[in-house]
């Protein structure tokens, strides 16, 4: 098993050197022989190992271990996501139930806004900034809803202006006796 980090030239330089030959020669002369007694001793020690220390499950290849390593990570991520979701739901629930108790005037404000929308101008007791000031004690979501409603109401204030103008024009025209004047013409 040779690797590319050690070139053939390097290997040749090391292996064929006098040093390499001498080192190999020395160990070849000193090589121990197989010892059956040592073998038996090692195997006896291995067999006497308590089963709990022996892991019979083979180590998985890297890719499969990586897959397995994802499982605890996925579980942890799922738990965090579930916690956040539950927290969000509870927060929304608390916000919805706090609104009427904490800001009773705000309900009146909303009703006022509704009135303003149906009859623009006539019963408009509060200007939009005043309504907002009144509603400032509401939770954030309620304020945002109010702002949206006000903007929508203001947008619709002139929504039927052309229609109304046409109706008014017909009303005014009908007051003039235009037909009679034409008939009286000699």
């Amino acid at each position, binding site marked *: *098993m*040779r*690797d590319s*980090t*050690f070139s053939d030239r*390097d290997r040749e330089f*090391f*292996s064929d*050197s*006098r*040093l*390499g030959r*001498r*080192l*190999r020669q*020395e*160990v070849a*002369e*000193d*090589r*121990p*022989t*197989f*010892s059956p007694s*040592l*073998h038996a*001793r*090692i*195997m006896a*020690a*291995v*067999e006497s*190992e308590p089963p709990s*220390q*022996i*892991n*019979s*499950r*083979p*180590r998985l*290849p*890297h890719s499969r271990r990586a897959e397995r390593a994802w499982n605890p990570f996925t579980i942890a991520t799922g738990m965090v996501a579930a916690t956040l979701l539950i927290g969000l739901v509870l927060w929304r629930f608390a916000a919805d139930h706090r609104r009427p108790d904490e800001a009773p005037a705000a309900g009146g404000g909303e009703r006022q806004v509704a009135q303003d929308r149906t009859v623009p101008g006539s019963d408009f007791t509060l200007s939009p900034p005043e309504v907002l000031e009144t509603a400032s004690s509401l939770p954030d979501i309620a304020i945002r809803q109010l702002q949206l409603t006000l903007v929508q109401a203001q947008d619709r204030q002139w929504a039927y202006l052309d229609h109304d103008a046409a109706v008014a024009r017909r009303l005014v025209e009908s007051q003039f006796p235009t037909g009679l004047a034409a008939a009286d013409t000699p």
Partner: protein
Amino acid sequence: MQESEVRCDLQSLPDEQLARRAQEGCAASFEELVRRYQVPVLHYLRRKAFAANDVEDMTQETFLRAYRKLRHYRSDRAFRPWLFTVAFRVALNAARNEKRAEQAKTMGDLVLDAPPSRRGSDDHETRLRLWSIAEDALSEPQFTALWLFYVEQLSVREIGYVLGRSAASVKTALFRARKRLEPYLREFTMEG
């Protein structure tokens, strides 16, 4: 199937397959690995010239640790470097323990069991003159790199795996070891 037939079958299997079978609980496969590597491991540990009993204990410890840690072995890698990683650590621990014992002795502490002589017989030292010098002159990783390269014929990458170093670092260690030993080799040549 007869035991001898099973053994014949196992003898034809590569190390990695035997290790995989041993991971699955096949004791005979592990025994075959012990049979194959008893001599290389014993040889590697003996070059340190520990007392003979210690070397046998260390060899046993190496295989016992290998057996315990077999689940950490990845069967897509060569078994020989993995086993020598275990042997290298056993040797390191033994060397550290011995060093501590020697330090304790030097400091005048009460040492009941004196460490055994690191050197073996004179004959052993004579035969392994250059290796004996290498043992004294080189650091443990340098010596192990030299041994694994020249004796076990491991590649630089595999030696790096054993020592926990990069291939470049192993090459540097080999060059330095060679440089340290060359003057002694010249001396031996002149004597010869």
